[in-house]
């Protein structure tokens, strides 16, 4: 009887596969060939005929190698669009108000598909959105610190803005240093 493990190893081309997995497949197929060979022998076939019968069951080694390679590849994870579609189908089945939600999801899926189809437009859109959001956040932070939040002093409510009348009759918030000192002394 042929050494089936060696036989399969010589014929099967399993690239890009873990060694333990490769070994398992080789041993399993060798077992399958042995079973077929023994069955043929039990049916009174000659050794050559039994060998040919076992080989016929495999058919095309090249095709088998390709099919096994494909089967062993990691299963593709669903894309975002596929996941939304699945969810959409599920909620559509619930009836009542749910089809409206499903329609929104359908629009979302359409939007995603269009964005994927136009990468240039998508890049510009994302960049503009990022810039807009960033700018808004920065401005809000500034307004919040300067206007909305109380100033970081002990009694912010007692703060006053002092203006002096200039010679031309206008108002000014800048005053000479001696006047500042005088004002400060008066406040004590």
């Amino acid at each position, binding site marked *: 009887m042929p050494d089936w493990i060696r036989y399969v190893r010589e014929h099967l081309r399993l690239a890009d596969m873990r060694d333990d997995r490769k070994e*398992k*497949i080789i*041993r*399993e*197929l060798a*077992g*399958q060939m*042995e*079973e*077929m060979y023994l069955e043929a022998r039990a049916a009174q076939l000659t050794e050559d005929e039994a060998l040919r019968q076992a080989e016929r*069951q*495999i*058919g*095309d080694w090249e*095709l*088998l190698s390709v*099919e*096994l390679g*494909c*089967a*062993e590849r*990691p*299963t593709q994870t669903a894309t975002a669009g596929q996941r939304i579609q699945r969810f959409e189908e599920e909620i559509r089945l619930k009836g009542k108000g749910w089809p409206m939600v499903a329609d929104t999801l359908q629009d979302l899926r359409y939007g995603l598909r269009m964005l994927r189809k136009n990468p240039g437009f998508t890049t510009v859109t994302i960049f503009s959105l990022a810039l807009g959001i960033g700018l808004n956040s920065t401005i809000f932070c500034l307004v919040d610190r300067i206007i909305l939040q109380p100033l970081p002093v002990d009694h912010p409510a007692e703060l006053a803005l002092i203006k002096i009348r200039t010679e031309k009759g206008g108002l000014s918030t800048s005053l000479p240093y001696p006047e500042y000192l005088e004002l400060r002394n008066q406040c004590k």
Partner: protein
Amino acid sequence: MFSPELKKGSIELLTLSLLRDRPRHGYEIGKLMELGSGGRLRFTVSALYPTLYRMEKKEWIKGRWVEKEGQRRRYYYRLMPKGKAVLFEQRRNWQDYVAAINQILGPSHA
């Protein structure tokens, strides 16, 4: 003989169905398909084993080596809970599909 496409579309369902009652090895699964169909359904190794490995990867079935006395070591596959659910779903779909086709074809006058 049935077309390869038709056979390809049913191999998962048939395999899961044969594993419903007890674990079986690849050769046995192929043999049972052939015997159960009166020799009309014969799957090549190139069709059967990649399907088994694909289903094992999806965790529909799980295999392990078993050595029985007086026999060589064989890799037995058993049905997993995920596979049971798929079997239920695929069987229902298949029955619905066949019923729909029969409805269109109408009664045979041959």
